[in-house]
């Protein structure tokens, strides 16, 4: 993030319709997912998405702490999204803040809706998402990582969850914004969906869009998610066909 009153607004779209990093409007940043990267977690995944680096770990089902949150008919999903202090340009004050609380909540609720939580009553499933390097779209990257980590942990779920953001830069809709586009663009719409049923389980919007633009961006997002879904599946296949010592990672 630049200093207050940064004067220079970068050119987000050049005359050929190319973006800062040379992508077209419908292109994703390069995405690489590796499952099973942590020894001590029940399940884990590492995601490199453009310049984002996100690690997700899943623990459980285990006893619920604090006890009063325990539910007699289902598991509670406890999700924590955290940004490392060194993940952004200017050192972030470590720990919980409003933003990370909100993201923890929306990611946790999105994932709870695909997990078969009724199979593990009186337990908790802990999901920990650590953003090591941030470049816009970390909540989507976190969700993508967490869903692979859950599958790696062997916790029953109805589907993997791909997620992506669609934004508006220079008046045009663009898939998967990077930092400059997020900072200087007009809108940002992160979304996550269940590919099998097409159900949206996360949809947020920052900035302004017309109704039609929102519709179009949903379509773009769905297409992006399909690609991400394939990479997620490849990451899991990789994990189990190579064992732990393969030079894993799916691109």
């Amino acid at each position, binding site marked *: 993030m630049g200093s207050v009153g940064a004067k220079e607004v970068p050119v987000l779209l050049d005359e050929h319709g190319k973006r800062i990093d040379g992508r077209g409007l419908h292109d994703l940043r390069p995405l690489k997912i590796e499952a099973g990267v942590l020894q001590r977690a*029940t*399940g884990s995944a590492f995601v490199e998405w453009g310049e984002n680096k996100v690690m997700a770990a899943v623990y*459980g*089902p*285990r*006893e619920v702490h604090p006890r009063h949150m325990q539910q*007699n008919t289902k598991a509670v999903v406890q999700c924590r999204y955290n940004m490392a202090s060194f993940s952004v340009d200017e050192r972030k004050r470590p720990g919980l803040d409003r933003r990370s609380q909100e993201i923890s909540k929306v990611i946790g609720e999105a994932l709870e809706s695909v997990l*078969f939580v009724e199979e*593990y*009553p*009186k*337990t908790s499933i802990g999901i920990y998402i650590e953003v090591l390097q941030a470049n816009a779209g970390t909540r989507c990257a976190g969700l993508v990582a967490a869903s692979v980590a859950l*599958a*790696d*942990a*062997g*916790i*029953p*779920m*109805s*589907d*993997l969850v791909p997620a992506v953001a669609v934004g508006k830069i220079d008046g045009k809709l663009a898939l998967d914004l990077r930092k400059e586009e997020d900072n200087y663009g007009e809108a940002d719409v992160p979304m996550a969906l*269940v*590919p*099998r*049923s097409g159900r949206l389980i996360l949809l947020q919007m920052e900035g302004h869009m017309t109704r039609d633009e929102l519709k179009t961006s949903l379509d773009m997002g769905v297409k992006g998610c399909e690609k991400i879904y394939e990479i997620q*599946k490849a990451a*899991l*296949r990789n994990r*189990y*066909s190579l*064992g*732990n*010592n393969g030079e894993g990672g799916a691109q």
Partner: protein
Amino acid sequence: MVLPGQELEAGDYRPGPGTYRADGKIYASVAGILSIRPPVVRVIPFSGPYIPQDGDVVIAIVKIIGPTYWLVDVGAPHYAPLHYSGTPWKIEYGECGEYLRPGDAVVVRIEAVDQNQRIGVTMNGDGLGRISGGIIEQISPTKVPRVIGKSGSMIRLLETSTGARMTVGQNGRVWIDGSQGSIRTVREALQIIDREGQKSGLTDRIKLFLEQSQSS
């Protein structure tokens, strides 16, 4: 091999463990190997938590001492009570701590799992009791059938070629006792099984490993 959300070609079969039914179709809910045994389709998972079942023999760790029971960790989300009537000893009220201390390992059998995930365990039975000596190695509970092998073939292979003694708990804990060298060899073999258990040719792989470790 199937992944969560994948549709299974399973016409009129019933969805078993690792699967679910939606919109009249059957999908996988975990990553694993598809197994169709009419009339049930199931997915044998690559990984997953230990779910206690009646009759399982497991290795448990004593955690808490009560007046008439111990709470033991069987690897499930909750501790299981081991009542003193379930032990071969005659114990007076309040004297449980003189027989088993926190940290002790015991081989127990799961007797009853109810709807509330309460687990009853007993220490009365063949091969059950307290463990002393040796080490306990934790592997994924889903790999336990591979460690045992067809009617115990893998255990026999490991025991005869190293001279170690093993007890495999359904919860993925394996007790190994023997000489230091044999314990180390078995332990490494278990790690191979844990890592590569889903691949074919596992027995050959282990045989090769055992030969190599013997010659070195």
